[in-house]
């Protein structure tokens, strides 16, 4: 019988290297996968990991995907460190898209020019929408001790149906031949691009700023310290007089707000209108990103990058290799699985016992 025995002194080095190992293992599994379906494994892997970053345009596209992933995962890293399991970032993102979209559509007529203030207003509305959605979960948890994992997850589907209802009705483009989508936003309401000639927008700056502020907050501020004590040792937090309710509300609202902001950036950036589907699962992928990034606000920059690669590589392998669209999800799953396996083996030793 195989048995896991805890190691007395798990290597600190290895626990930092574990995400790297996980990425390598994911590549190895990718090789096997491509071989199994009869593709040239190395060439296919290159499509996934090299093709997306072979030129500036490629890098900028990676940045477009990285922005929402990073925004969301910074918030989730905070949540998970405080032991608040917000699984519903996807729903908070959708709500952010709805509220930001509604604001844009309200002000966007022939006379309005958009501009800094209206864009800011729409972004704030997006963050507020995400906070509202996360606030429902926080309230139910706080007041009725409802499990935040279930509540936040179920609210994802509510949010998606709400979006679908709105783009089929109140927010539908009247001249859109009945297609379920809103009007295209005017240029004045779109986020400015960072690199001329690419789609890389302001969202990436916001995301990097969030990561930096998140890092300062968790490592330097007393408030961030309190959150983490609550996550590591709830009894010690109670002993110290740190409020668990406060932790719950702060982390849920911040992560919801960041997810909502990501939703706003998506529709005011690469999408440019409200459609029934505003996210290819960024909210869920960001959970993996947060853990691969070791729940560290700077660590998640690197894991967001890997995840963004997987998204683009998945799209490329559909067109270049004729692989099904599920390929992105498969790679994401293998990545999370490898990370968890590495962590288990770093903290435990495998022993063969009769």
């Amino acid at each position, binding site marked *: 019988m195989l048995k896991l*025995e*805890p*190691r*007395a*002194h798990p290597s600190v080095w290895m626990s930092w290297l574990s995400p790297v190992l996980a990425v390598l293992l994911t590549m190895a599994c990718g090789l096997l996968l491509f071989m199994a379906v009869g593709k040239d494994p190395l060439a296919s892997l290159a499509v996934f990991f090299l093709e997306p970053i072979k030129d500036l345009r490629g890098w900028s596209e990676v940045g477009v995907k990285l922005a929402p992933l990073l925004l969301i995962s910074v918030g989730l890293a905070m949540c998970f460190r405080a032991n608040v399991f917000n699984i519903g970032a996807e729903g908070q993102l959708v709500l952010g898209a709805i509220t930001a979209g509604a604001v844009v559509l309200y002000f966007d007529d022939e006379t309005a020019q958009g501009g800094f203030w209206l864009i800011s207003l729409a972004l704030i509305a997006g963050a507020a929408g995400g906070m509202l959605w996360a606030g429902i979960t926080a309230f139910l948890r706080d007041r009725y001790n409802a499990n935040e994992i279930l509540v936040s997850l179920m609210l994802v589907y509510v949010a998606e149906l709400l979006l679908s209802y709105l783009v089929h009705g109140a927010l539908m483009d009247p001249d859109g031949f009945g297609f379920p989508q809103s009007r295209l936003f005017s240029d004045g309401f779109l986020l400015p691009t960072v690199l001329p000639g690419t789609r890389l927008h302001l969202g990436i700056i916001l995301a990097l700023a969030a990561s930096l502020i998140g890092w300062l907050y968790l490592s*330097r*501020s*007393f*408030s961030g*310290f309190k959150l983490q*004590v609550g996550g*590591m*040792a709830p*009894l*010690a937090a*109670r*002993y*110290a*007089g*740190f*409020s668990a309710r406060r932790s719950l509300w702060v982390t849920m609202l911040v992560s919801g707000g960041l997810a909502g902001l990501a939703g706003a950036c998506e529709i005011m950036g690469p999408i440019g209108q409200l459609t029934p589907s505003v996210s290819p699962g960024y909210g869920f992928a960001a959970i993996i990103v947060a853990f691969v990034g070791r729940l560290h606000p700077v660590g998640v920059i690197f894991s967001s990058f890997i995840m963004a690669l997987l998204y683009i590589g998945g799209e490329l392998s559909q067109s270049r290799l004729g692989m099904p669209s599920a390929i992105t999800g498969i790679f994401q799953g293998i990545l999370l699985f490898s990370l968890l396996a590495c962590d288990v083996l770093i903290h435990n030793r495998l022993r063969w016992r009769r």
Partner: protein
Amino acid sequence: MTPRLALKRITKQYPAVVANDQVDLVVQPGEIHAVLGENGAGKSTLMKIIYGVIKPDQGDIYWNGTETNIAHPAAARDLGIGMVFQHFSLFDTLTVAENIALGLPPDTRLDELERRIADTAQQYGLELQPQRHVHTLSVGECQRVEIMRALLGKPQLLILDEPTSVLTPQAVGKLFETLRQLAAEGCSILYISHKLDEIRALCHTCTVMRGGKVTGVCDPRQETDSSLSRLMIGAEPPAITHHEQDAGQRVLSVRKLSLEKAHPFATRLSDIDFDVHAGEIVGLAGVSGNGQQELLAVLSGEDTRAAPHAIMLDDAAIGRRSAAWRRARGVAFVPEERLGRGAVPELTLAQNILLSHQSGRTVRRGFIRYKAIQRLATDIIRRFNVRAAGPDAAAASLSGGNLQKYIIGREVLRQPRLLLVAQPTWGVDVGAAAQIRAELMGLRDAGCAVLVISEELDELFDIADRLIVMAKGRVSPSIRRSEANMDLIGQWMSGLWPGQTGVSNATAERMHVEA
């Protein structure tokens, strides 16, 4: 005579520590054999090896003269080895008989079992009603259920792991009678303890362990406390000098404090009255599980459900104030659990400072002052002789005693006006325990009001000025240490104190304070 049990060169190694190093142990039939040692000396590991819970890495076990391999607890029971663990494994919602039946073959008839229980109970003076539900039993009675369970297996060797930590002095006396009778009938008894007086009163032979090794085998009846403790810790415990001192003004007063249970297995607090004055140590005695945990949580502010005026700090009603609020006004608290409550295991010693030091010295404009907490941690480590790699060592890397010294040091350094301490020396080696007691005395001399909650009566008699006793969620009137004795406190621990029969608790307390 063939020994009942003989262990030869038993060694058990864990990744970080050698728990048993070439341990020899010989138990004769009908012998009450003590295994004495401090926490962490390897006693429990050795017992688990005998009971088949753990396999030794090396060494042989002889049972009645033949070499034996005890693979699992069921094999141990088949041989005739019974064990009473420190922590009970009983189902609260089942009756005594049903709980015992769980360990027996499925075709056991309950009525027949109840008769056997009643017979055995009578034979050994173990008062026990088979039809009662376990949740209605006291801790001492629960222990009797466990002993009964072991006795029904007709053991030739009975192992008891620290059995008296949950008993009143009177109940200890009863247990000893039962054990002596068992031994007289030929059953061998292995008695695990760190209490010297008990071992000297009860046992025929004593094997002393220190750091996983056997440091001596002796007849405890021929030894003194100091000679035994030299074997156990390699030194004599330093004596504490207690000098009388007049108490100052009242700092904490608890009046008519009642509180419903927070969960089904908690204890309800009812009508609690007592005071703690500046410059005195009040000792709260009691068998564990009688509401001490709940009372502490209410006093520290971890539980804020009490009526505001039930707890007064000076002139402020603090029943509903948070732990942080109370701390800011000079309350300090050392909880029973060090890792996970008094300190966060994963964080460094320096970071753990922030659990109780949250003033401008350590936190400025919402940001942590790392240099300041680093300095504080270094100070504590030096002043209190904490054996640690430095302020950046993780709390989990310290031994229990060193972490306790660190936590006490952290609270002492805040110069509190009121210190609440639970089990200050529980699981701490004798040297560190003496140091901790001296720190508490020093704090008292400096005018701090100290409330010590402890299951060790000796400790309370050592350091407290006044004693109060907790039983079934109530608190007795206070009594001066000089007027108290073990027997009296033992009676009070079962809930029988004068206030119960007419005199109200508050009057009795006033009488004692003024006396």
